[in-house]
């Protein structure tokens, strides 16, 4: 069984990886590339179910064991079931028909819980960034001073009020972004890319095996 459980996946990862690389350089193999991509998407869809299951089972365990905060887990399940039921109903078309985005409970819950809650969660960060900036943003060193000056110039240059201070502020801000910022980003981009390529090669050649999971899962 070790061959099926550990060696076969490594061989498969190698073959899939080589196919992924070669199809880029062989135009005649575009059909293989398209089909491989379709397979990827189908398997990926199944993997999303795993993620959702993991979340829900964690909350279910909390409810069953009456752990601290289990009431909130019940609220999570309530929200899930409400949206799930509306999803199955699909505005009276049922789960076998294409999704109805024109109305219905699923759209109502999306518009009135998911959208405002999601937007609010991230908007909280505006307060925390202001508080953090006030307490910790200090020009203690020349490098920190460069950071501070760049931040102030960009913050003034990107909003209309900057023009009232000086007509050169927006121009300076644009130059800062397009030249020194761009150069630094490009350096980071190239460096990160070389690292990503090294990691991808490690996966393809079986050196990196974290995705295989624990050996305790071997039966």
């Amino acid at each position, binding site marked *: 069984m070790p061959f099926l459980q550990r060696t076969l996946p490594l061989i498969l990862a190698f073959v899939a990886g080589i196919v992924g690389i070669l199809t880029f350089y062989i135009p005649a193999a*575009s059909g293989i*590339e*398209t089909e491989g*991509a*379709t397979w*990827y*998407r189908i398997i*990926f*869809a199944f993997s*999303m179910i795993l993620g959702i299951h993991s979340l829900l089972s964690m909350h279910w365990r909390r409810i069953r064991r009456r752990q601290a905060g289990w009431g909130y887990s019940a609220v999570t399940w309530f929200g899930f079931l409400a949206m799930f039921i509306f999803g199955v109903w699909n505005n009276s078309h049922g789960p076998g*028909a*294409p*999704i109805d*985005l024109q109305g219905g409970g699923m*759209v109502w819950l*999306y*518009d009135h819980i*998911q*959208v*405002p*809650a*999601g*937007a609010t*969660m*991230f*908007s909280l960060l*505006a*307060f925390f*960034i*202001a*508080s953090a*900036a*006030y*307490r910790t*943003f*200090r*020009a203690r060193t020349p490098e920190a001073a460069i950071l*501070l000056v760049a*931040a*102030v110039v960009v*913050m*003034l240059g*990107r*909003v*209309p*009020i900057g*023009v009232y201070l000086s007509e050169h502020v*927006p121009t300076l801000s*644009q130059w800062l*972004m*397009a030249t020194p*910022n*761009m150069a630094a*980003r*490009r350096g980071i*981009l190239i460096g990160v890319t070389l690292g990503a390529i090294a990691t991808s090669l490690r996966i393809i050649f079986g050196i990196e095996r974290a995705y295989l999971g624990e050996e305790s899962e071997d039966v």
Partner: protein
Amino acid sequence: MANLTNIDRRWIFLAVFISVLVPLLVGFHLPVKASPNVRAIYTSIDALDAKAGDTVLMSFDFGPSTLTELQPMAKAVLRHCFRKKLKVVGVTLLPEGVGIAETILSDVAAEFGATYGEDYIFLGYKAGNEVLILNMGEELRAAFSTDVRGTPLDDLTVTRPLRSLGDMAYVLDISAGYPGVEEWIQYGQERYRFKLGAGCTAVMAPDFFPFLQSGQLDGLLGGLAGAAEYETLIGQPDAAVSGMRPQSVGHVVIILFILFGNVAYFASRRGGGS
């Protein structure tokens, strides 16, 4: 002075709240001038020819958490497209983007009397992230055999003549992270060399300047300010332009906080030293 740096953070929260609330309630005019990166997208879309059947693909790769920044720019560009009677194909790489994209497309289409199927369509979402772009690149129907409503692509006027991404006159990706602009560059623009414009949250905008300079990106709409500039260019100020008032005041307040914090810090160090 040292005590001022340890102020209860809820006072800072209150100051930020007031600095955003007051300019929302009080109207005053701030001129918005388009930057070169935004103007590039406007010029490219303006140059498209509806009579030649030019089609714009818009990828709404964002969810509710970044709606405020990205919805205004999506609406502004859509208004430009519909005003020029260009055909529009919508798609999203994120499951939470489906409802948002559908709402934006139908709301703006209603403003211009655009008809679904004839003037615009929405493909919907498929799992796979960047691999979906790969599928669409070679053969659109390998990724989407139907639109989001279940209609075969060959039955829709907009998509009947389209075979792959290479048939798009312009692609605009509006994204909040992954999957997004970088994936469209790597898996789409890199091979099919279509004109790719990007809209993104302000957090991500600095990352994309290398692609602007290399020409891989045609233009960039960065955050709410980018949206305000595009609204100004199309002559239809909306949520983004009105958002520039609280944005400006908020920025000034935060800058003052930073400067004051530094003054207090250095003053307390000097006081402690002497």
